[in-house]
């Protein structure tokens, strides 16, 4: 019950945030010089044809009026019609969503697979060589530009060895798993250091906590203590790190989709910006903002469930 109340409260809090996002995006994209009608018609178009399209698309209306129409449609569940593709923007976004969701989830899984063992290894003996190596590696990894890492993986893994495809989404579960490995790894590389840091620090902190000392006194094996108590308690903040970084992950997909030629939401967004396809840009940012807000709430909830010390307010 307390969780349900918490959920409702967080959802209500999210409404003005999402509303703010739509205003910022709406204003920005309309400030960008460039005309979607010219882009659609090409340089052959006459001024009359351009004006006709403006009228058809409602671009001849004032900005507040356009925003008002956008909101009205939004309440009816309509994200508008893409100017470039002449299809419902919401539909286009949903069509591309699987690729991006796959990337996000895959990158998260890879992050955990790399970060958890690395952090535990580092924390197993504080200050030891392995600790220092893990820490130095993660400091270094923090500064690797994602686009560059992606290029390196494509050239030196995909093309040279042919182990993984250099691009594409693949088909079927295993196909996705194979095709999206390198891009997901690239995205994960940016997050792993953050999770390692947090998890390592928390593990060390928890290892000194009273309940662990008690467990030791009870004669539980060190291994068991680590897995049962330490990891469990250290995970909660790490999950928060991950959840809070979901918008970073989402942003990461934007460039990585470009580098690996993946037709996800990120590339749709860049195409939308390029073509000044206002409804698309709005739809993508809105949906991404919802994902970000949703994952954050989810992260808080999970943390509360795992870690009884976290108060649910």
């Amino acid at each position, binding site marked *: 019950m307390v969780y349900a109340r918490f959920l409702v409260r967080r959802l209500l809090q999210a409404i003005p945030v999402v509303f703010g996002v739509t205003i910022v995006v709406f204003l920005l994209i309309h400030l960008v010089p460039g005309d979607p009608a*010219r882009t659609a018609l090409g340089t052959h178009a006459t001024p009359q044809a351009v004006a006709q399209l403006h009228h058809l698309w409602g671009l001849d209306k004032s900005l507040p009026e356009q925003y008002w129409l956008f909101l009205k449609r939004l309440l009816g569940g309509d994200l508008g019609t893409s100017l470039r593709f002449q299809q419902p923007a919401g539909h286009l976004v949903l069509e591309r969503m699987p690729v991006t969701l796959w990337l996000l989830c895959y990158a998260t899984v890879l992050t955990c697979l790399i970060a958890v063992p690395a952090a535990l290894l580092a924390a197993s003996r504080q200050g030891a060589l392995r600790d220092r190596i893990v820490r130095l590696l993660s400091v270094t990894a923090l500064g690797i530009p994602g686009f560059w890492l992606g290029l390196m993986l494509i050239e030196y893994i995909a093309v040279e060895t042919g182990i993984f495809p250099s691009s594409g989404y693949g088909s079927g579960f295993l196909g996705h798993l194979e095709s999206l490995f390198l891009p997901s790894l690239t995205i994960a590389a940016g997050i792993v250091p953050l999770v390692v840091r947090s998890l390592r620090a928390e593990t060390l902190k928890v290892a000194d906590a009273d309940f662990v000392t008690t467990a030791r006194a009870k004669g539980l094996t060190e291994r068991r203590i680590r897995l049962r108590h330490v990891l469990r308690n250290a995970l909660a903040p790490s999950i928060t790190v991950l959840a809070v970084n979901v918008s970073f992950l989402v942003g990461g997909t934007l460039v990585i989709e*470009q580098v690996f030629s993946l037709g996800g939401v990120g590339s749709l967004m860049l195409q939308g910006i390029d073509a000044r396809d206002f409804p698309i840009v709005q739809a993508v940012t809105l949906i991404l903002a919802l994902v970000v807000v949703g994952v954050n709430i989810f992260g808080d909830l999970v943390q509360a469930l795992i870690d009884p010390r976290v108060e649910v307010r």
Partner: protein
Amino acid sequence: MKMGLGRFRFGAVAAVLALVAAIVVAGCGGGGTSSGGGGATGAGANGAGSSETVSGGEGEAQAKPGGTLTLADFDEPISLNPFMVADILSSHAVTQMFEPLFKADVEGKLEPWLAESMKASPDRKTFTVTLRKGVKFSNGKPMTSADVAFSLETIRKSPVWGIMFELVESVKATGPDTVVIKTSKPAAKLEGQLSLPFAAIVPKNFGGESEEEFAAHPIGTGPFAYASWKRGESLTFDKNKYYWKPGLPLLEKVVFEMVPDVNSRDSQLRAGELDVVASPDWSQLPAMEAEPNLHVGIYKASILDSLGLNMKEPLFQNDKVREAINLAIDREGIVKAALFGHGETAGSWLMPGLEFHDETIKAPAQDVAKAKKLLAEAVKEGVEPTLQISLLKGQTFTTTVAQIIQSNLVEAGFSVSLRPLDESAMNSVLPAGKYDAALGLLASNIVDPSELASFYPATEALYTFGSNATKVAKLEAEAVSAPSEKIRGQRYAEIQEAVEEEKALVTLDYRPFVWAMQGNVTGFQVGVTSDPWLGETGFTE
């Protein structure tokens, strides 16, 4: 064999050579074809109608029917409604699904396609088209004269293409296989305009659907039929079972993948994930040609790269400044560094491959000393030699060219900055005249120069706002109604001279279209107008 063998000039001799070359390729896997590069440059001087493509035709015993061809283009079409788009990506897709009445073959020669013949009245104002019999749409319904009349009426009124069909007054179906086209003035070469890939024949009234509905699942007479389109990912075509050319197409399926990043396209081709890629990076061509499993097809030079000078700017109103820019630019350097030797320096703005291309207009050799002198004189006359070059962002080729020009102009005494813009911004900035100088490119969808020549005045001298737009418009009107080919040729020569004289459109280079593919792809044809024709494409073995 249609690719990579480009050095042979077309003609009777070439046919023999082509066969030899095909065998060479089959024998040594194509490695041998990369010798003696720069073929495009040589063939360019061959004048209108010549093509880099070598057609093996029926000589190829090894092509077998079936298979799926995966091709990567640099973007996706804007729409599949042929009457509303003009971009090159849409034209690549439209060409597979739709066909016009006339079509240029790989040599650039026009041949009747969905038309069987066209007869002109003595005054050349009434044209009677006899349609090819037995043509069916991909839904199995036969093509009728009503379909043709509807289609031509639609392109004539299209906001995008109307300007090219201004002469046409009416199109009427007069019999089951005849359509009569009436023009307001004599039309010198209507078939030229009718060969536009966008002048596609579609079912009457879009088969009873709205234009938007039709564009979502188009139906045409081309070798391939629309199957599905995953936006931002791929566009798939199935074989048109009802295709009118017997035995064609060979392929079961064609997938156009959208891969905007040139390096991704290249690496996917090298990794064997793709069969064909559009426009590989110029720097990659030697490496690809050396690769035994890959073929590089360099097709007829069909793109003109140019630097447009905005004549609304006081700086460029000075004749000496324009002349100085013209002389300062190192065109040879551009061809060498940006095109890696593929392509040639550009003279006339109507590129080779177009009819009436004037090869006597030569690109001036770089003369920095003279450019400096001219600029110094202009500065004394009070001009401020500072300019900004607008260019499309994020494209290796364009960025390289811009940097070469910048360095050339700085050497001549200009102060130059670069302004990378995205396409939307570029499309807005140019018509508004809000730029100093801009890098642009020009390509024609037809072999007839009328498309570009009508486009020139309609865009206020390609947005250079030059004073010759009216003159060109007048000459173009005379050319399309010219009583003889000779007079038509003269008018186009005058048009080329007029643009050359003003020097507001600084021509830089002619750039060929390049496609790279796996060695087992055969029959991949690209005409002088950039669109690949996959009707005869197939795989060996």
